[in-house]
């Protein structure tokens, strides 16, 4: 009996090792939501399997953020905003972009009714404590608005309760959460960065350069299957929403179908390049350069990061 248990334990262990070696762990940078619809689709529809990549999606936790999982080699790929990627490279961790999903900036500043964010000098403005909002910080300095940044965890409560004057929001996420609280959003109290010369790409698919160099083929297969997932999602938004909701429920996310539907619609729009009206899935050198310069000028980077540093090959 005892021997049976030991041999069973040995079997399990070897199996897990084998699994760990073959598995391709992908960790999106946030909890499950429509922002990552293309990846869920690629997994659910078997695009990864078709490509011969055994992908597992592991969402980040409080103790393990996406970037820490990459750094710790626990995940092979993650999504990052371009500004985040620049910071990480500046920190000395070479990473490469293998697929760019966002072609446009989705960040907005929302003020109270009747207020204009551009006229609220020195206002208390909410910002994610998870590390997004670099472009906003640059803009605050560029435009001499000198916002007082108030980090928030993951809700819009500070803004609703009146504790802060304005808040940063993603047009696909917090923007709708704010609408859901019953506040009125219009052209005056909503500042959209892409409309004001700060149209800098956001979400893209990244992995360490080290991993990339050693698993180029797998990386490209993964990127291509992911791209296929996004294309399918764009063609089949209703079925995609069902898939998203499956992940949302599996992860007990405090959201609802309507919010996810709105988020999916917005994310799919962000896939389309504003200039050539197509989904091109690549980083734009001009945007990389603009982001790098902005962040460098505002002291967020120790040096300008070149486009080539982000690009595979």
């Amino acid at each position: 009996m005892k021997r049976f248990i030991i041999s069973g334990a040995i079997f399990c262990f070897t199996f897990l090792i084998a699994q760990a070696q073959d598995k391709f762990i992908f960790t999106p940078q946030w909890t499950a939501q429509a922002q990552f619809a293309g990846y869920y689709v690629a997994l659910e529809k078997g695009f990864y399997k078709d490509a011969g990549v055994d992908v597992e999606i592991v969402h980040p936790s409080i103790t393990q953020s996406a970037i820490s999982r990459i750094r710790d080699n626990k995940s092979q790929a993650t999504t990052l905003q371009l500004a985040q990627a620049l910071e990480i490279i500046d920190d000395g961790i070479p990473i490469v972009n293998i697929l760019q999903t966002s072609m446009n900036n989705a960040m907005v500043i929302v003020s109270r009714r009747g207020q204009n964010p551009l006229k609220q000098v020195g206002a208390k403005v909410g910002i994610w404590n998870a590390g997004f909002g670099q472009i906003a910080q640059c803009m605050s300095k560029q435009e001499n608005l000198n916002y007082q940044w108030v980090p928030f965890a993951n809700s819009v409560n500070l803004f609703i309760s009146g504790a802060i004057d304005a808040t940063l929001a993603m047009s696909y996420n917090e923007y709708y959460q704010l609408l859901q609280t019953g506040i009125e959003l219009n052209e005056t109290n909503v500042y959209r960065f892409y409309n004001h010369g700060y149209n800098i790409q956001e979400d893209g698919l990244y992995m360490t350069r080290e991993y990339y160099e050693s698993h180029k083929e797998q990386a490209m297969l993964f990127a291509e299957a992911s791209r296929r997932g996004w294309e399918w999602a764009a063609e089949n938004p209703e079925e995609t929403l069902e898939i998203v909701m499956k992940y949302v429920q599996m992860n007990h996310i405090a959201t609802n179908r309507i919010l996810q539907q709105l988020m999916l619609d917005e994310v799919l729009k962000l896939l389309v390049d504003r200039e050539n009206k197509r989904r091109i899935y690549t980083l734009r050198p001009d945007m990389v350069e603009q982001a790098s310069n902005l962040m460098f000028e505002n002291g967020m980077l120790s040096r300008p990061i070149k486009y080539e540093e982000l690009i595979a090959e």
Partner: protein
Amino acid sequence: MKQKSLSTRLSIWIVLLAGLIFIAALGVFFNESRKAVRLEAIQHATQSLDNTIQRVTNILTQVKVATDNTDWLIKRHLDAPDSMFVYSRRILENNPILNGCSVAFEPFFFKDRGLYFSAYSLNTNGLIQTIQEGNDYYQYFSMDWYQLPKLLDHPCWTEPFSDFNPQGISSPDMIISYCKPLKDENDVFFGTISVDLSLEWLSKTISAVKPYPNSYSIMIGQGGTFFVHPDTTKLFYQSIFTPTLIKADTAIAGLGHAMQTGQEGMRQLTVDGEDCYVFYKPLDDTGWSVGIVCPAMDIFGGYYRLINAIIGIVIVGLLLMLMIFSGIISNHLEPLVELSYQAETIASGRFDEEITEYKHNDEIGKLNESFRYMQQSIVRQIEELKQVNEQKGRIQGELKIARDIQMAMLPKIFPPYPDRDDIDVFGQLTPAKEVGGDLFDFFIRDEKLFFCIGDVSGKGVPASLYMVVTKALFRTISAHESSPEKIISRINDAMSEDNDSNMFVTLFVGVLDLPTGRMHYCNAGHDAPILIGNTGAGLLPVDSNLPVGVMANWKFTLQETLIDPDTTIFLYTDGLPEAENINHDQFEMNRTIDLAHNLQQNRVFSPTAIIERMTSAVHEFVGEADQSDDLTMLAIQYTKHHEEIKYQRTLTLTNDLKRVPRLNTFIDEVCEANGFDMSSTMQINLAIEEAVVNVMNYAYPAGTVGNVTIEVKSNGSEVSFIIIDSGTPFDPTAKPEVDITLSAEDRSIGGLGIHLIRQIMDHINYERVNGRNVLTLIKKISK
């Protein structure tokens, strides 16, 4: 479409009216009831809501008081960080209802404690654990419960949240926190005290409010998120505004904003497709709002059940009414239907169909009685009608016979005298009714044509009887009376006597001496005849006199004229000029005269032709109109052509019987000259002698001398002996025929003589001309 029966129509009207009254009454009743139910519901729900809010507020107040009581201790013992664990723990110990308590400080507030220092105690089913909770994975500085009082600078409640500290302890439940900023004597913020309450308890308390079976409670936070809701898919995940993101709903949005802004009230709106009443009230100073959603069906469920029951009862009642009324009315009208069938049967001719007697004395009873009375009357009337018809038939038959008799009385063989060349007659009578009052007649006696035409006043049977009498009198009287005025006078006298019926007759009587063409005539109120002859056409001049029967002893005037050969005397009754067409225009005399002229110009003298032409002219004029009066026409054409006198002699004698032999000789000579044989000569001698002797004996008074002249004329075919005297007027022809059956002694004087003359001579005529008696005796010459 078949007409509905009276009972159905009446019942439908009654039921419709009753239905309208019900609708009106129930409408008012339902409306008022609904108002009352609504008011009651508002009071009931509001009361429940108030009670619950009060209970919750009491707890919340307890939390605040506990916090305030600890607040000052913390500020006093800032020199002893570890004492914070004690205060944190003591709050829970003193208030078992509390779930947790954090006393958290700004980064590096206590230099020796580093970045994080937050004393946190957690009550897990009475077991209280206390730890320092801050770490890299639980950066409480970014937590709402820490930041809100700091940023707002006053105590506040957080939105419900799920706390999770991966490297510490945390409540497994959703919690709400009352948090208060900690500030030093310089009013500088240095930390937050946060006291947690399990949302579960709050949720249970609020959910327990259930004023109606299907009502439920909700609580929304400042952001509209549901923190209490029976639907777990909405709880924490959705806000009251979520559905409005994809489909505008101003009612829901309005409710959300009202609740968010701390208003209290009641709204009626559609929630998840159901009509609901929502009662809402803010929860103390938390910024949250509690609402009770009551489906209208719950509130008005009893009311609707009542309505349905009443409407059901009313409908069933009305249907029953319809059936019962229909039945009752139909039942009451059954005698009427039966009566109708029986009336139809009677109408079809079966008059003996028995009408069922209806006992009740109501309208139908009266109608029934009237019908039965009517039936009896009809039967009786029909019986009478039958008798009348039979009588009428009999009378008709009799009238027909009377007509035949009347017609038979009239001359009907035309031409009446085919053997004669001196006269042609045609007559025609068309009565307006079965029998008529017109008459005409003619006959020849002693070579004289006696004729008459008359028109009795009035028509029909009385007139016909009068006509018959008149005609009979004419025949009787003219049999021995040759003078028209005498004939009429005698008829008049006879008819005027005992004329109680005041009837009269217009009459024209003419006597045409055929050998001479001299016509004597008398008119009693009749229309003047028309003469149509070679020289022209025109009315015969007549004295009108009086109609016969009007006045006895009236002196009728005698008139005379000479009728030229070929002339036709056209006689008619007033049925001719007074014939009417449909416009009641009359034919008039002028048309008659015009037609006569026309006939004359065309030389139409034949009686038959004249009457036919007159008849067709009248028919053409009258057209479709009924004949208004009897129409009688009589036409007499005198066709005598006088032959040339070849032989003529005259002998005048005194009234002396001795002169008789001279007469005999004269007669013998005449007879010989004209070729009579011996026997005829003797007979002529006898007849002339008889007539002359008669004159000699009686014409002159005894002892007076008078002459008697005998003129003899012969034309070769007949010999006329004209005996003329100027003595006493005497008409031997007026003597009645001799009754030869009597003995010679019994016979009147002269009677046998005139009989002898009539036997011998072919024609005998008497006239009184210029004070002389002129007796003409004619004997045809045998060839």
